[in-house]
C-alpha cells in the first residue's frame, strides 16, 4: 500500500460495504484514493529532469494525488495512473526540474 516507494496498486480494489457494522466508526477513507485512478483526467503531463532534481521532495509533498513516489535511486518517479496533470509539482519545484508537456494520446 505504500505509494511512497512505489508499491502503489496493491490493495487498489474498490471497497464495497454491505452491512452497517462493516463501516468504520468515523467516516475516514478506506483506501478509496488508491482505487480512484485520476490519471485519465490529464491533458498535460509532468516530465522530470533527473539532472536538475536535487531530491528535496517538495513535489512529493505538494502533489494532491498519490502520483509521486521516491525511486530506489532517490529521484522522484511519477505514477501516471494517478497523475491528473494539475501542474502543482512543476510550479513548486525549486529547481524547475519538472516541466508540463502536452500529452499525446
Amino acid at each position, binding site marked *: 500500500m505504500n505509494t511512497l516507494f512505489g508499491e502503489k496498486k496493491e490493495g487498489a480494489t474498490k471497497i464495497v*460495504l454491505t452491512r*452497517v457494522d462493516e*463501516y*468504520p*466508526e*468515523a*467516516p*475516514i*477513507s478506506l483506501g*478509496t*484514493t488508491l482505487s480512484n485512478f485520476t490519471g485519465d483526467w490529464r491533458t498535460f503531463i509532468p516530465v522530470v529532469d533527473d539532472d536538475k532534481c536535487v531530491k528535496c521532495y517538495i513535489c512529493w509533498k505538494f502533489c494532491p494525488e498519490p502520483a509521486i513516489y521516491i525511486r530506489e535511486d532517490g529521484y522522484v518517479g511519477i505514477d501516471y495512473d494517478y497523475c491528473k496533470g494539475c501542474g502543482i509539482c512543476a510550479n513548486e519545484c525549486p529547481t524547475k526540474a519538472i516541466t508540463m508537456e502536452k500529452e499525446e494520446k
Partner: protein
Amino acid sequence: MEYKPIRKVVSGNYAAAYAVKHARVEVVAAYPITPQTSIIEKIAEFLANGEIEGLEYVPVESEHSAMAACIGASATGARAFTATSAQGLALMHEMLHWAAGARLPIVMVDVNRAMAPPWSVWDDQTDSLAQRDTGWLQFYAENNQEVYDGVLMAFKIAETVNLPAMVVESAFILSHTYDVVEMIPQELVDEFLPPRKPLYTLTDFDNPVAVGALGGPNDYYEFRYKIAKAMEDAKKVIHEVGKEFGERFGRDYSQMIELYRTDDADFVFMGMGSLMGTVKQAVDVLRDEGYKVGAAKVRWFRPFPKEELYELAKSVEGIAVLDRNFSFGQEGILFNEAKGALYNTNAKPLMKNYIVGLGGRDFTVSDVRKIAENMKAIIEKGELDVEVDWYHLKR
C-alpha cells in the same frame, strides 16, 4: 490517594479554566467573546505563569476558525478545547457538524447568552439549543461546581463515545459570579481521566487515513446511523461516568435528570441550568407552605433523557416546563422535546410551558411561587389555560 478536595472561590468561567488545566488539554483555540472571554484569559494566564505544560494555545481570528482549529487538533489525536457564546456559537455552526460528523471528542464551554438583536450579553439558552441537531452532547450546569465537574466528565464521556460535548453555563449568573468550588487534586483527575485513545489519528503514518472524505448516497446514511447510535450509547456512558464521579469525588451525576423532592410531588418544575438553583430553593419554600412540589433538572439535553423523563412523568399530575429559550413559530424547546418524548407513552401529565428569563430577565423564588399557584389551579381544573405562557410579559 485519599480524596481531599481543594476549595477555591472562583467564577464559573475560572472553574471551567481550572477544569481544562486539570484535564491536561493539549490544544486550546482561543477567541474572545463576552461573557466567555475570561475562560480563555485564565487559560492564557496559566500558560504564561508556567502552570500548564504541553498546551498549544492557538489564538484565532473568529469562532469559525476556533472550531476548525479544534477539529484539526482533535483529528491528530489531541485533547482539544474551546469556549464561546451566542453569536460566536452561531458562527461555529457549520464546524460543529464537522466535529460531530468526524467523531471528534472536542469539549467546548458555551456561556449561554441571548442571540441578537436586540444586542444582549445576558443569559438565555436559545444559542446552545439552536445547536441541538449538530450531534454534540449537551450538559447544562446549575452552578460553578457543575461547570468544573461537567468539563471533566464531558471529556471522559466524549472520548468514550467519540462525539463532541458542550458544557453550558449561564452568562454572568455563573460565568462572572464567584462561588466555592471543590477541585480535585491533579493525580486523582489523571486517574479519572486517562489520556485520550483516538479512533484514528492523522499522525499515524503507518495507517494513513483521509478525514472528511466524500460519502455518496451509498455510504452517508450508515455514518448518520452510527452517530445516532453513539448518542444512544452515550446514555449508558453518562450514567456510568456520573456514578464513578460520585464514588470518587462525592458528587453523583449518574442521573441525566436530577430529581429534587419529587417522590410524593403532585407536580414538578422542569428546566435546565442555573435557574434550577432558584427553583430548588423555591421548592423548599413551597413545601413549607404546603405545596407538594418538586424539581426536575435536566442535566443532559443531548442525548435527551427520554426514559428518565418517562419514569418521572408516570408519577406526577403536572409538569411545568421552564424554558429560558424559545423556538419561534413553535414553543419553548425543552417543552417541545419533553412533550414529544412522552407522546407514545402512557404517561400523560398536564404539561405547561412557561417562557422565563429570556435575555437575562430576573427569575426569582416569587416567580416560581406564582407559577406554582397557576399550576395548582390548572391541575384542579384538569385542563390548561394556555399551553405556552409568556410569563413575564408586560401586559
